[in-house]
């Protein structure tokens, strides 16, 4: 069976039931592809066993890049390329460079984080997200289980497990 094509989809109507459901499904040895929620559910990443995000590390590196570029730019411009007397200060003096350095640090950290997040989450232009169930944008939590990733379990087994875990509805969904 092709990976990432055929899914069993559980629909939950309560986040506490969902959190318990996730734990039950995972303890049954089933790999969950993704869970979609209309609002952030506290503790869901722990329940899904997600690894700690490395986004902060990326942010730090982007920020440092901003700091470096800002200092380089200002020292080069005002210290070497086009020295100007401003307020009788030295051509290249650190204090007035700090605000610009701060701003560029923040700017690059923020833009870098957004970019990294978009790339890591595979959100690129003209990529239309797959809808497992449209109600995940309204009032339902939707759990998607890839059949190919759980080859050891039959479709019926997975459906039964979802039902036992508190799903109010269990559907099948296939993508081309």
């Amino acid at each position, binding site marked *: 069976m092709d990976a990432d094509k055929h899914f069993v989809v559980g629909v939950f109507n309560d986040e506490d039931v969902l959190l318990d459901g996730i734990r039950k499904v995972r303890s049954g040895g089933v790999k969950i592809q993704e869970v979609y929620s209309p609002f952030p559910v506290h503790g869901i990443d722990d329940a899904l066993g997600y690894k700690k995000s490395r986004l902060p590390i990326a942010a730090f590196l982007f920020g440092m890049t901003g700091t470096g570029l800002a200092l380089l730019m200002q020292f080069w411009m005002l210290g070497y390329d086009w020295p100007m007397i401003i307020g009788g200060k030295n051509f290249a003096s650190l*204090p*007035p460079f700090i605000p610009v350095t701060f701003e560029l640090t923040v700017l690059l950290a923020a833009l870098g984080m957004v970019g990294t997040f978009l790339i890591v989450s595979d959100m690129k232009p003209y990529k239309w997200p797959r809808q497992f169930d449209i109600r995940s944008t309204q009032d339902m939590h939707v759990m998607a289980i890839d059949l190919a990733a759980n080859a050891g379990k039959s479709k019926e087994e997975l459906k039964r497990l979802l039902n036992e875990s508190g799903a109010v509805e269990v559907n099948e969904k296939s993508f081309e």
Partner: protein
Amino acid sequence: MGHSTIVEEKFVFTQAAKTKIFWLLGAGVLMFVAGLLLAQQGGHDNHAEGHGHVATEQLVASADAVAASDGHDDGEHHGSAYWVKRLYTTLWMNNIYFVGLGIIGLFFVAIQYAAQAGWSSGIKRIPLAMGNWILVAFGITVVLWFVTNHDIFHWTHSSLYGEYVDEAKTQPNPGYDAIIDGKAPYFFWPGTSGGFPIFFIARMIIFFGMWYWFFTLIRKNMLAEDLDADTKYWFKNRSISAWFLVFFAVSSSVAAWDWVMSIDTHWFSTMFGWYVFASWWVTALAMITLIVVFLKDAGYLKVVNANHLHDLGKFVFAFSIFWTYIWFGQFLLIYYANIPEETVYFIERMSTSPYSWVFYTNLILNFVLPFLLLMTRDAKRHLSMLKVVCPIVIVGHWFDFYNMVTPGVMQHNGGLGLLEIGTGLIFMAAFLWITLSSLSKMPLFGKNHPLLEESLHHHI
């Protein structure tokens, strides 16, 4: 965790803890006495080094007749002996530093009520206990001010005021200082310039009195809630807190001008109120966090977990940056404008020993280290890193206050040694004693706090 599992806790101020505080006090007293003796022997003769006083004193000497008419102040203008001045300076500096720890204890509690914060309901008793210092600080500040005023506050000298010494305006006053005279109403209104500073003392008493009054009201409601599970106490405290915050917004700034900025009487900075507040605030946050960490270590505070520590860590981290922002804002404005009467403040601090190394150490301890050490999520969630960073911040801001107070009084003769450190330790021992003994007299958290359940489920 359900409501039923909450067990009321009570902090026991053990003999072991008391012994440790006595050791701290003993070390402080030993250093204080040794430092005082050293200062007495190594005293500098500094009477000619006051800013702008050389000219004044020569004038006074050449115009004996004029000086005689203003005689009583002449001797005091030379100031007390070196070691006395140094002693007064460090007493005042340490007092102001610890005033902050007390008043911010109350401020922290008030912020939590006004913001209707749930996460902090398990730890609010710690800042509340720190608030007990307000009353002690009230006494120390008033007494210390009357003891030290001529030595620390240049503006208290009556010879600075009045352009002429006689009614006919023929004899100019040699000690006249136009800038300080212009500021006279701020200290002396409605009395005469150079007399008893009615307005100044009234502010001191009103601020401390109001702070303590608000403190007793909030404490009363918090403790009443323990005996009577009713949300009305929480609602009452929310209103009281809102009123206190309005009052504190004004009084904290004015207190900073009065007790710290007026030492450098000629100088002023419009950011100074914020600056002192930022320093007080982050120091007290570090102190609250440190006490929570030690209570956790001793097995108390079952209601506090890594998520609450994370929030406290974020507070220390964020307000270390906030302090730096204010510090740099004040510095950059003065640096760029380059007006001599403003820049003198920083020149004094950047080019004189020991202020210059304190000046740069200050930035490392209060910005670089907390910023780098508390940056990651794990650092804020673990006791071990908080145990490292909080003392750094507490010591760092002690240096910050040292540099705010000392140069204005001691000029080129400032000392930083056993005397200063010993005084700091004595104050610290007293502060910890007051805080921990009052903490042991009430439950460690309010079991009937309406938001305690929310705090138990706090997750970030």
